[in-house]
């Protein structure tokens, strides 16, 4: 009855094991004790202290959006790359059109100044 779910269970188990393994590994391997700076969470260079209600710059958001869009592009390109040879020139042309349209978007963003931090 539950046999078809076995792969799912295996996946679940593996991810749990992996998580535990990572945490343990970093504890074991990390040198020295915990200073105040070291125990603070890492936030990509932002200072994590301060009023939690303080506003972020909207730039973070813009970059995040850019990331989403160009990230999703890979879910189309990856399957294409896997079978690029079988799809032939037609497939290549299709992928080319796709990338061309994305490039136009990129040019727009560039010119708009969305890629500059200041």
């Amino acid at each position, binding site marked *: 009855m539950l*046999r*078809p*779910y076995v*792969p799912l269970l295996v996946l679940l188990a593996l991810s749990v094991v992996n998580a535990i393994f990572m945490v343990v590994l970093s504890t074991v391997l990390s040198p020295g004790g915990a200073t105040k700076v070291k125990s603070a969470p890492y936030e990509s260079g932002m200072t994590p202290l301060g009023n939690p209600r303080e506003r972020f710059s*909207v730039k973070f*958001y813009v970059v995040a*959006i850019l990331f*989403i*869009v160009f*990230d*999703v592009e890979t*879910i*189309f390109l990856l*399957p294409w790359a896997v079978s690029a040879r079988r799809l032939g020139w037609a497939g290549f042309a299709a992928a080319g059109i796709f990338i061309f349209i994305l490039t136009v978007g990129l040019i727009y963003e560039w010119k708009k100044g969305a890629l500059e931090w200041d």
Partner: protein
Amino acid sequence: MQQIPLEQALGLSALLFAIGAFGVVIRRNAIILFMCIELMLNAVNLAFVAFSPRSGVQGQVFVFFVIAVAAAEAAVGLAIIISVFRHKESVDIKNFSLLRW
């Protein structure tokens, strides 16, 4: 290898979809509302994948499209929510009733 029965997969999909739809009806934070909608879309993705063995591999291809569309929607939707936030300092949809009847 034996497959997960279609009924069970569809049941899960329907359950997720219903949770998403109910979330849209009962939550009032715009962002959570949007997350509920994303949940609905992903429930549909599950249904597509579940149908795939029987109806053809396109089902899985559709999922890619849905993910891409969802990403685009997310980008626009979050931008809209930010723009609304600037007026109201809030994302509670209960506060948005300039337009009614």
